[in-house]
């Protein structure tokens, strides 16, 4: 399989896993160069962490903000964020 096919297959895989389906329309024939970039699941571990997300089961108690601070420290990364809170001050 070419790099393009593996890239598209990856996008289809993650969409399906999330309960969605990609219906593609091909507009232009295209190839991608192996000289730069990488398949998302083949990133070096450091890049993988810097461009990663975790589906985290936050314990009740600490706020999302606090948990983000911990995660940031555990991974020792410059930036981290979260996807949203359920209530004010949570």
């Amino acid at each position, binding site marked *: 399989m070419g*790099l*393009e096919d*593996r*890239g*598209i297959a*990856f*996008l289809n895989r*993650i*969409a399906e*896993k*999330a*309960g*969605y389906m*990609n*219906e*593609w*329309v*091909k*507009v*232009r024939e*295209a*190839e*991608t*160069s192996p000289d*730069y*970039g*990488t*398949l*998302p*699941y083949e*990133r070096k*571990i450091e890049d*993988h*962490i810097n*461009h*990663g*997300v*975790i*589906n*985290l*089961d*936050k*314990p009740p108690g600490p706020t999302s903000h606090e*948990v983000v601070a*911990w*995660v940031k420290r*555990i*991974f020792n990364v410059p930036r981290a964020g979260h*996807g*949203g809170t*359920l*209530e*004010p*001050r949570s």
Partner: protein
Amino acid sequence: MVAQLHENVPRSRIEEVVELFKGRIYQKPPVRSSVKRVIRTKTIYDIEIVDVQDKYLLLRVVCDPGTYMRKLAHDIGLVLGIGAHMRELRRTRTGPFREDDTLTTLQEVSEAVYLWKTSGNEKYLRKIVLPVEVSTAHLPKIIILDTAVGAVAHGADLAAPGVAMLTKNVEVDNTVAMYTLKGELVALGKALRSAEEIAKMDKGLVAKTTRVIMPRNVYPKTWKTKNAN
């Protein structure tokens, strides 16, 4: 969520009232709120009564982001005429994330990082940390040519000739995710045209870039600059 009713009510009555809250509802943000306190409309896509035990009501609610569940529980109590308040709340789904095998705990995260740092074993870490692309798995998608990646990664809007393929569900004003042909997330944007239109265009802008994710130097610059020779 678990709501506690302030008095016992027959289940049939609860079912009737819960039904009223499906669809468009009005909500004013609570006093302690980070957003402007004006009445907003939110859509409740579904409310499932999972269980009723005595005064406790277990509900599964599918709603717009930013819908206040505590308010919903309170309002259900008001309509029932006996009052109610929220006791517990858990998010079971958000965008592409759900309670599946990717759901992890702080404990597991910290152990996986420890293993990697002490023994170089990446296996567990790669199970827990997902590629950033996963967070956009639910969005309409546009795949762009290698030659367009550099510009979009610098914040440029996407033009028609840069499009390789796209999903049929791209509509005007949609948030769209733009990827390389390798499947790497480049940026998020707002679609300016529908998929059908974009497929036929050979010039003009098709998406406004709103948030760049890919570092600028991963793909080469392909556009001309004044000082180039």
